[in-house]
């Protein structure tokens, strides 16, 4: 009862917020700028889950919440709600991506070539403790390759489709405002393809990983091979009211194709998201791959994983259990006591109570 003391509510919540903010201290433009430049992968993750690409706002959200990721994502999603949709960008095709990193586990070499790009994959994970002793950890300069890799590359799946190894995805003919948008309409099942891909793109990284990992470990039907993983930048091409098409800027994107053998064909799972987040797209593509043959109610069924990887909903519901529930509790308490009394009476008289 302490926290619903009569008339105390308003003051209590005000002071509890002050306490939280006091710990964080001043939020300055410098702090936001430092977060943005020092933690690009964290910024990417937050932007992806918020489905709002703005590095400054993402850095601000992280500063304001002290790095409480669920809160930061909610802050950005709530901001997004207030924003009008001014234009719908042109579709981004895979071969138009400005590619930084592109690897395939399916083939030793692929048309366009493997591009290792920036990664910690082969780094030894050793803390640079000298920094704590006052030294600066300065990265070694990058030595450019003699021949730069081409910036634009076809997709591996396109090559496989040409060679009859898999059925190419049918291009979606919907354009502009007709494209189903999961932020403007509810997710229903069986889900529209656009809704599935959008939901995975917005999904909470940890949740997608947990369910994707379960599928990879054997709770799914299909074992994935990474056909292609790509980190790239995409041009956001919009049409001016006068008809001119122009690039409004570039956004970082990740995408993964995973495949598995099904009969004489390969089956394809796909995922893409805003920002660079490799774990998320590989896990999400695994779920996409497995969903086609998933039994109802299993963790690899679309309805199951799309509902349960929605981070804003799941984290909100989880913390709502902190709210008082004494009315519901009182109601079950009454039923419990009454049932107990009935049972006792029945045992006493050995005659049915009713």
């Amino acid at each position: 009862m302490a926290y619903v003391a009569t008339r105390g509510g308003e003051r209590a919540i005000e002071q509890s917020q002050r306490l939280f903010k006091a710990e964080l201290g001043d939020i300055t433009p410098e702090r936001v700028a430092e977060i943005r430049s020092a933690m690009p992968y964290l910024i990417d993750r937050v932007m992806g889950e918020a489905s709002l690409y703005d590095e400054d706002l993402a850095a601000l959200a992280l500063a304001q919440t002290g790095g409480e990721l669920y809160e930061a994502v909610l802050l950005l999603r709530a901001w997004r709600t207030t924003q009008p949709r001014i234009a719908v960008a042109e579709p981004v095709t895979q071969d138009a991506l400005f590619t930084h990193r592109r690897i395939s586990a399916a083939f030793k070499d692929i048309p366009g070539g493997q591009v290792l790009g920036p990664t910690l994959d082969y780094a030894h994970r050793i803390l640079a403790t000298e920094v704590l002793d006052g030294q600066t950890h300065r990265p070694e300069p990058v030595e450019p390759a003699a021949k730069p890799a081409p910036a634009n590359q076809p997709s591996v799946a396109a090559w496989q489709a040409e060679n009859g190894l898999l059925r190419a995805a049918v291009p979606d003919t919907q354009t502009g405002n007709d494209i189903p948008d999961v932020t403007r309409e509810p997710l229903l099942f069986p889900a529209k393809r656009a809704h599935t891909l959008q939901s995975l793109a917005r999904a909470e990284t940890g949740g997608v990983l947990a369910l994707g990992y379960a599928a990879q470990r054997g709770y799914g039907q299909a074992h994935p091979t990474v056909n292609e993983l790509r980190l790239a930048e995409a041009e956001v091409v919009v049409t001016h009211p006068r008809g001119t098409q122009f690039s409004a800027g570039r956004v970082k994107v990740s995408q993964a194709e995973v495949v598995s053998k099904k009969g004489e064909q390969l089956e394809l799972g796909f995922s893409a998201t805003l920002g660079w987040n490799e774990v998320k797209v590989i896990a999400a593509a695994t779920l996409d791959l497995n969903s086609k043959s998933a039994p109802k109610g299993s963790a690899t069924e679309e309805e199951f994983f799309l509902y349960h990887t929605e981070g804003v909903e799941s984290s909100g519901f989880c913390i709502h259990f902190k709210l008082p529930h004494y009315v519901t509790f009182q109601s079950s308490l009454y039923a419990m006591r009454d049932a107990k009394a009935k049972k006792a009476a029945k045992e006493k008289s050995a005659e049915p109570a009713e």
Partner: protein
Amino acid sequence: MTLHALTKPWEPMSYGFLDASAKREIRRKMIKAIAVPGCQMPYASHEVPMARGWGTGGLQVSLTLVNPSMRVKVIDQGADDSVNAASIRRFIARVAGTPTTMDTLDADLIQSRHRIPEEVLREDQVLVLQVPNPEPLRPVQPNMSIARQMHADADYGRMWLQLYEQIVRSGRVMQGASYPSLVHGRHVMTPSPIPRWDVPKLHMAKHLTILSAGREKRIFAVPPFTRVEPLVFSDVPYKVEDHADLTCHRSGTRGFFMNEIPQDDGTSVFEVSDSAWGVKAIRRRDGEEVALGETWYKNGKMPS
């Protein structure tokens, strides 16, 4: 005509926070929900500056319905001063400029979590109930797409079976709050986790009730003068919580839904759950002129 005449100055957010297209969608879904009482209507359910599960569904409906002259009351578990009720009330007042009240009689719109006030609501009042889980079939069918099909077929055998099983196992129906109820003889809905005490208040009520689940993205409604019948066997009567003879230790009011407060000596005292009603009863006892409305329950009984 000048450009200035056609445009509005920039504002950081729309009136009532939600943008016009979001409100339009919610209005349309509310109309559909009223047209098919008790039927869950999916809606987009935008993120609002509160966590999911904290009343975001109710909030979106309230934000869509309010205008600056509407008086808003917000309660959580019956109390106006519960922390989350205070937070929601402050937010609505801040983004929509609405006056607020704690008195049920003065309110035009009441957003509530898990209670219906003890004073009878009028034709001109709207009750918005926050709903954590809109699907009464969830305990018997967790899959949403199958559950939707079951509603379409009015396939409610499993709901009844659940009650049968409870009586067989425990000697009584164990369902406490969220008691599944048949609306307008067609759709089974959850009345949200209001106690059984409150469910009869919805039956043939004069006011409109809108139930909204933000996280689960569903709106449903009980229009005025609509039948709301708890699922019960014809020979096992519906029983509300046994609170008719309890007295509030603070206000002395009697015959309403109470909160039980355990005491150090192992006993319990009771406090009326509708805090505004309790406050009014205290003020009247202390000699103030306070208007007390007609209550649904009279002497602890709901007139049938």
